[in-house]
């Protein structure tokens, strides 16, 4: 190692910390940066963040369906008040509000959900293709969120946050199904 100057110093502090590299290292560093950050990004996203994101996506999907149905299918204000209000502006339907951790695995809930799902599928056939696509996309988002959360809970059954996120996601699904079901009733005459 050689010092850059032949000057004399009276204390160690005068040496200073800086020594310039013999050549510019930046091009070598820059060449490696792009791959590093993009490769690191998925690894740095924690499972917790992913689960929260999934639950949020499910919620957005359910609200989107509610808004869509409220805007396009339900009778206008002043008409027969048979339909459900817009989901984004209301409390969850009574069936959804009753959902809890035990309930979502209860055979009665599973049976009722299956019946509702079949009914919704029938009603969807009578709806415009655009609406059908919107509902199908939202249900797919919710289904992905449910599967991922259930898989995570399988590995960590006592995780309270995961349980809560899963229940919320089931509620979101129920909200979509109920909205579509009620829109079908309201839209009979459309």
């Amino acid at each position, binding site marked *: *190692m*050689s*010092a850059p100057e032949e000057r004399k110093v*009276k*204390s160690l*502090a005068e040496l200073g*910390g800086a020594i310039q590299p013999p050549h510019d290292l930046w091009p070598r*560093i820059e060449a490696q940066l792009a791959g*590093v950050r993009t490769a*690191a990004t998925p690894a740095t996203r924690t499972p917790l963040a992913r689960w929260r994101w999934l639950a949020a996506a499910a919620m957005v999907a359910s609200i989107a369906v509610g808004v869509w149905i409220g805007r396009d299918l339900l009778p206008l204000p002043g008409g027969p008040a048979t339909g459900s209000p817009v989901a984004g502006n209301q409390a969850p339907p009574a069936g959804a509000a009753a959902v809890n951790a035990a309930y979502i695995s209860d055979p009665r809930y599973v049976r009722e959900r299956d019946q509702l799902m079949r009914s919704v599928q029938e009603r969807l056939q009578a709806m415009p293709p655009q609406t059908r696509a919107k509902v199908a996309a939202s249900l797919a988002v919710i289904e992905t969120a449910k599967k991922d959360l259930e898989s995570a809970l399988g590995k960590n059954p006592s995780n309270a946050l995961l349980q809560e996120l899963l229940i919320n996601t089931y509620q979101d699904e129920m909200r979509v199904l109920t909205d579509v079901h009620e829109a079908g009733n309201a839209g009979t005459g459309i």
Partner: protein
Amino acid sequence: MQAEVQSGPVEWEGALVQRAAAGDTRAFERLYREHAGRVYGLCLRMTRDPQLAQDCTQDTFINAWKALPQFQTRSSLGTWLHRIAVNVSLGKRRRSSAVAEAPPQDEEGDIAGEWVLETPVEVRELETAIEGLPEGARDALVLHALYGYSHEEAAQMLGIAAGTCKAQLHRARRLLRERLQMEVN
């Protein structure tokens, strides 16, 4: 007024850090240009090998780029980079030499002070004397006397006990006195 003068560069650096954390490589290049000399100087003095020091400097900035989104802008970027550089240099040095250094014996006396030499010495002569110190003593000396870290901070960066770091500084001072044949206070 003084606060404004002091906060100016820090705010400027903080803005660059935020841009770099968001993926702006031009901002990160400016941070590199600002800090490369002190990071390379630290790596060179720790490894005593210019090629290895370049590798360490490169790895330091790549590691910093990876971890930048987690960096707290209220901390000093320079100190943070020096911590990374110390870790990288220790790691590379450990891989290149398997022989562990014996811990120093406790020595009495105060290690606080400016490390003033009895008579002026050429930079080259002083750098050679530092270069010839045993690794542990040299690491502690460089961080404390050249970079201005307290012996507690230097100990934390080096992953050793504060008492060990203090003993290394005593040892460094004694050896420098012997090699330069003068008082170092």
